């Protein structure tokens, strides 16, 4: 061990950058990815709508310094549209993940605390939601609600809880066998007391990480269902709308309409993924040493 340390020290002396330990690197990655996501939101919110107005003498410009993502057939700046779209995706993602996490927490806790019948019902409900392809469920719910922003948000929010419910249920089941919980029960604490004082504090990290890791799914599903035409109306700057519009201009060679918005979406989803993974390794000591 000491020889490894010595090597690390000698490296840090010769290298220009200070050598960070694993925890510091994890923190750095968290800060960087959070900063990237925040800057997307800031960009989307600060950009005025004047960038989105039609500008017919600047139609179909390929990417340049002035318009890094090019312009579309109405002369709108694609960078501005993409940033607005990503911000919208983010809002949908926040709403959907929060609702999903709340549902998952309620169901998972209920399944693990209220006995076999409730547990069976919750497990069955999870299986029911996982038994139909996710995208088909989204289409069905969006269809029921008549599409639109409300339809998309509700569809995405109401369908992302099953896997997290399983995780929370398993976690609670494990916690309940822990000695301090058993002792607490023998001391005559109520189920509610145990649930709120013993179980919830242990679940908070899980929930936080689960929340962040739900984001990528929620955002991708929002984009997918919007792309299929169920979601946001064509006037709204959503990435799904932008990409489905770009399909009509592919054969004319306007490749930038599809490339950059999709790439930006990919980067954002990946940033959430990295953020979630690093948060988990910071919070969960069991996988911190992988």
């Amino acid at each position: 061990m000491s020889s490894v340390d010595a090597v690390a020290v000698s490296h840090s002396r010769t290298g220009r950058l200070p050598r960070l330990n694993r925890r510091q690197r994890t923190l750095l990655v968290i800060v960087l990815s959070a900063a990237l996501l925040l800057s997307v939101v800031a960009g989307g919110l600060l950009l005025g709508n004047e960038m989105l107005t039609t500008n017919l003498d600047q139609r179909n410009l390929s990417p340049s310094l002035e318009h890094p993502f090019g312009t579309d057939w109405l002369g709108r700046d694609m960078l501005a549209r993409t940033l607005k779209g990503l911000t919208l995706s983010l809002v949908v993602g926040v709403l959907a993940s929060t609702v999903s996490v709340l549902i998952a927490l309620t169901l998972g806790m209920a399944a693990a605390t209220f006995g076999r019948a409730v547990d069976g019902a919750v497990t069955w409900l999870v299986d029911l939601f996982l038994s139909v392809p996710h995208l088909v469920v989204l289409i069905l719910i969006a269809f029921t609600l008549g599409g639109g922003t409300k339809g998309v948000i509700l569809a995405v929010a109401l369908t992302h809880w099953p896997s997290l419910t399983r995780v929370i249920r398993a976690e609670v089941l494990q916690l309940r066998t822990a000695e301090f919980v058993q002792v607490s029960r023998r001391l005559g604490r109520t189920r509610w007391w145990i649930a709120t004082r013993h179980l919830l504090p242990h679940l908070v990290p899980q929930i936080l990480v689960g929340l962040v890791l739900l984001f990528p799914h929620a955002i991708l599903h929002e984009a997918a269902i919007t792309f299929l035409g169920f979601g946001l109306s064509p006037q709204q700057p959503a990435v799904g709308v932008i990409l489905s519009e770009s399909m009509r201009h592919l054969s004319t060679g306007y490749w930038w309409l599809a490339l950059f918005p999709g790439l930006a979406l990919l980067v954002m989803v990946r940033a959430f993924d990295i953020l979630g993974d690093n948060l988990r390794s910071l919070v969960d000591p069991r996988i911190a040493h992988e």
Partner: protein
Amino acid sequence: MRPEERVQIAAVLVFIARKSFRLGTLLVAVCVLSFWLVSHSPIDPVNAYVGADVMRVGPEQRAAIAAYWGLNDPPLQRLVNWGAAVLRGDWGTSMIFRQPVIDVISERFTASLALMGTAWVLSGVFGFALGIIAGARQGTWIDRCIKWYCLTLASTPTFWLGLLLLIVFAVWLGWAPVGLGVPAGVLSDEVTFGDRIRHLVLPAATLSILGVANVALHTRQKLVDVLASDYVLFARAKGESEFAILWKHGLRNVALPAVTLQFASLSELFGGSILAEQVFAYPGLGQATVQAGLRGDVPLLLGAVIFGAVFVFVGNLLADIIYRFVDPRIRWGGGRYEQC
């Protein structure tokens, strides 16, 4: 027949019976829930049926259509009527295709099956190979590359990748057609097998490239676990070569989870094929589902939901059965080792 064999067969039958019962309850629930959902849609079924002729249809005709579809009955009555018809094999008539739903689904699913089957096999084989390479070389640059590549794929929107392939191979290089399952303007009997393949390549490539990620990451992790096990340590101590260890201990222990995972991921494959079919205008079941949803074709939408549920269930059932047949540690029936 020896008694153990008889016990074994009985256990298999009990297992299948239990699973079928489970499918039954889930399917009934899926039917009731979906029916309840679509009956609350704000889209008027008569308008959806009439379509563009909305100005030429008078109130009497509308009433006649509503009566014909049974739209005036109370919801419960409609649910029972529909459920009974579905059980008899009559899934109703698709409004947009003007054909029985069963026919639409079977025709469209055949096209989708070619697409999904190709992608399923290709992504399985390549994903497994990538996972083995990464796991065997854990910690090296090639492992990091494969891991990074797979994690990035997992964040890639399916339809965007499809668009990129379309831009590069269809628009720039002109190697592949821009869309549709068969060439436009050609009679259906004149469509050759080659034409179908040409139209299948890009959508299948999209799904295969994305499908690799899951199975590769899973296989890698399993292989890393296996290579860290005591029996591999013992094999090394005996002086077996790395290749022999990989071949004898690695592959055997890793192949089964990979196959199971592939079967269990049919749900994602189905979702992916919906998006890929939409991008490439490939006339499969996914595209029909999207059309049904957009244009308010309730019978077809319900049919697609039920079919999707059966499809996913069959995948999971196959995964379970394969696991139990191959892996002696998992018993049939409710044994102690069951890992459901």
